[in-house]
């Protein structure tokens, strides 16, 4: 009890210069000092005189009244509080740890080694010897002698002669110690050591701490990859280029201005345009997932049953393409894109004379069957179209109202790039076929069109205009004249289809509504090179063979498909298909394979090298009574055909292996390849026919 009190009092006295302990209690804002009050009464008179305010040290512990009143007892014992009470030692005898009860309670507070030596102890003697050796110079002899003498004359003190010696001798009989004592005053402290101490006032230590505001920190982490390094280099390059541009001068300012505007525009809009590419890819990915099995079939399925069927093949239906707004229209034209072989164009219109409305031009990709890639609505029904072989963004279209137009897929608008009008020589009747030609001498693009008004017109794209040139006028030769005076007025035939020779540029065939096919030349505008009496009804399609330069096929609504050699007036092969034939197409991979579609919904595939009389595949692909097939086209590279019908649907089919037969290699010969083979194949067939012809004719 007294200890803390005194400490507290001391602390207070130390920290508070002004006040006196007792006074505070009376002033009594602080009840905490109650404890200490009782002790401090001696200096009471000071309180009243000074009346100073109670000041508590700021770091004094605050205690509640209860806490202040509680008594902390301290007991002083003889035990060392720091001594360990639970020492445990390992006992080898008992092979275990045993606690030791008796613990050394001695606490050493202070040790000071003394430097006093007892005079009789050995150390003292040694020290004395050392001191003696140290004083060799002055007193060595004397002491030695005296020591000897001491030894000798301890019995005979009168032997020595010197006074000193005598004096010393006198002392000799005394104890050695007295002798040493006599010498002690002479012996100075051999270390010349004296200890003097004084203590200066120690200044109280005080800590002063100063802390600056730490610099702002941010943690940074990065990885050093190949591409990070590459990006850094690219940025550097761009910076350098910008610097160069700035050096070039004012142009850069203008560009910056424009680019800033562009930036603003972008941020204002919802940046939806950025998504076009991404959303396209997305849609195609989803299509791939949705139509996964079809895609697999397209790529990998080969009808195994073809091995069992001798010659026949099948068509495996693949994707079906349809567009909502095209439901009322019929497919009037199909064309594959040469460059992007999954893209094809569909022309939609109507064959019905009475029901003529608007038309449409659609582009589909096999990768996205759900929705067309490009949509162009047209005011008049599309009757025919052709995609340029080299510039596959250019599409020539012929309309029901006789106009022709050229669309460019690169353009953003829905309008054709070029369009013919009444002034610029449009046809007066529906345009039944258009065909791109090679560029003319000025490298302008040009295409041909044929129409029921009897004209075959060449259109050239000169800058922004379509310039037309009548190539030929189709006339009805040998027609009955109806002129009043008997003069033969050649009436105009209606062209319904045409096709240009693959190799001989100037030669082309025109099929007419009367059923005749004329072989014409671009250079002769009034005369035909030859005329074939092909069909009894309008010739819907004529097509040159891709391989054999002499062969072409024609089809008509009179249910027949005929194959011709253009040097011979009569057809080589005639096939009756039991229904009006809408379209016929040669296959790009074989000179003897072709396909025909009929209005009863059947696709007929022929391979003349396999079977000269019958189709090797006759397949009903759509509902017989409802839909008529209007067009068919082979894909340039894939074994796929697309078939258009009069409901606006386009269906794709995969050709089974039997339909794609290549000639078998003869034993010992290499497998022949290339178009020569195809030509030879056809030639063989034709020669078989010709011989009987020649024989008969």
């Amino acid at each position: 009890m007294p200890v803390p009190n005194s400490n507290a009092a001391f602390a207070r006295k130390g920290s508070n210069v002004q006040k006196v302990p007792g006074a505070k209690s009376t002033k009594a804002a602080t009840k905490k000092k109650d404890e200490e009050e009782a002790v401090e009464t001696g200096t009471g008179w000071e309180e009243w005189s000074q009346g100073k305010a109670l000041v508590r040290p700021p770091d004094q512990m605050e205690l509640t009244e209860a806490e202040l009143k509680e008594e902390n007892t301290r007991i002083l014992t003889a035990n060392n509080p720091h001594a360990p009470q639970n020492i445990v030692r390992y006992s080898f005898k008992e092979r275990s740890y045993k606690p030791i009860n008796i613990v050394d309670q001695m606490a050493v507070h202070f040790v000071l080694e003394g430097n006093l030596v007892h005079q009789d102890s050995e150390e003292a003697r040694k020290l004395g010897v050392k001191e003696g050796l140290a004083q060799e110079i002055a007193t060595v002899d004397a002491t030695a002698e005296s020591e000897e003498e001491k030894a000798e004359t301890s019995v005979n003190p009168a032997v020595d002669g010197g006074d000193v010696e005598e004096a010393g001798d006198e002392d000799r009989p005394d104890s050695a110690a007295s002798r040493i004592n006599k010498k002690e005053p002479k012996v100075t402290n051999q270390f010349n050591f004296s200890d003097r101490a004084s203590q200066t006032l120690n200044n109280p230590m005080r800590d002063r701490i100063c802390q600056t505001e730490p610099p702002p920190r941010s943690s940074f982490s990065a990885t050093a990859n190949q591409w990070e390094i590459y990006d850094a280099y690219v940025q550097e390059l761009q910076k350098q280029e910008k610097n160069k541009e700035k050096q070039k001068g004012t142009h850069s300012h203008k560009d910056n201005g424009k680019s800033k505007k562009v930036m603003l525009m972008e941020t204002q809009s919802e940046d939806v345009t950025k998504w076009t590419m991404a959303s396209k890819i997305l849609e195609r990915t989803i299509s791939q997932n949705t139509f996964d099995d079809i895609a697999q079939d397209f790529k990998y399925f080969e009808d195994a049953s073809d091995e069992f069927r001798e010659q026949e093949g099948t068509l495996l239906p693949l994707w079906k393409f349809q567009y909502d707004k095209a439901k009322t229209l019929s497919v009037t034209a199909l064309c594959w894109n040469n460059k992007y072989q999954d893209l094809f164009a569909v022309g939609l219109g109507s064959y019905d004379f009475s029901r003529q409305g608007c038309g449409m031009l659609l582009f589909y990709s096999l990768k996205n069957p759900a929705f067309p890639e490009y949509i162009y609505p047209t005011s008049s029904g599309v009757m025919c179209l052709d995609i340029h072989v080299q510039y596959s963004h250019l599409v020539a279209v012929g309309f029901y109202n006789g106009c022709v137009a050229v669309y460019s897929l690169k353009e953003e608008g829905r309008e054709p790039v070029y369009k013919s009008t009444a002034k610029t020589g449009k046809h007066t009747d529906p345009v039944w076929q258009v065909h791109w030609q090679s560029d003319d001498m000025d490298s302008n693009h040009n295409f041909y069109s044929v129409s029921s008004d009897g004209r075959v017109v060449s259109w050239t794209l000169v800058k922004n205009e379509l310039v037309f040139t009548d190539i030929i006028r189709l006339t009805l030769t040998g027609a009955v004249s109806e002129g009043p005076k008997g003069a033969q007025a050649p009436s105009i035939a209606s062209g319904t289809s045409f096709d240009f020779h693959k190799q001989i540029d100037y030669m082309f065939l025109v099929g007419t509504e009367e059923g005749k096919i004329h072989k014409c030349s671009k250079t002769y505008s009034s005369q035909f090179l030859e005329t074939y009496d092909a069909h009894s009804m309008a010739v819907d399609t004529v097509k040159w063979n891709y391989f054999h330069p002499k062969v072409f096929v024609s089809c008509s609504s009179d249910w027949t498909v005929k194959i011709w050699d253009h040097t011979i007036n009569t057809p080589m092969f005639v096939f009756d298909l039991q229904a009006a034939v809408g379209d016929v197409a040669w296959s790009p991979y074989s000179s003897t394979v072709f396909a025909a579609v009929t209005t009863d919904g059947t696709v007929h595939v022929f391979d003349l090298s396999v079977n000269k009389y019958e189709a090797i595949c006759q397949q009903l692909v759509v509902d017989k009574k409802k839909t008529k097939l209007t067009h068919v086209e082979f894909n340039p590279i894939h074994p796929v055909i697309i078939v258009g019908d009069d409901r606006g649907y386009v269906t794709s089919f995969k050709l089974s292996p039997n339909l794609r037969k290549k000639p078998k290699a003869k034993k010992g010969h290499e497998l022949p390849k290339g178009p020569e083979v195809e030509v030879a194949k056809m030639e063989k067939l034709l020669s078989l026919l010709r011989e009987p012809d020649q024989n008969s004719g």
Partner: protein
Amino acid sequence: MGEEVEAQMKRIEATKGVIGTLVVDPDGVPIRSTLDQSMTLQYAGQLRQLVILARSAVRDIDPQNDLSALRVRSKSNEIIVVTALVYIQSPSKV
């Protein structure tokens, strides 16, 4: 051009088997979504990391290359990410 893309997006969302679509800006904040809020945030957060990792992998091998699409097929779902677009589809066909 914007309307076409909008129409395309709507078509995609309406396709059978598509659970939802999600468009995320370059910072990872969802711009447009057909999923509910919690799913949106979850997909956005998780896929962002995956796309960064995939892109890093592609570009590390060839810095001039860049990631264009990423498809993650799982037992129940397929997630298709096309650079800026995140898209979720169920592979089941009805």
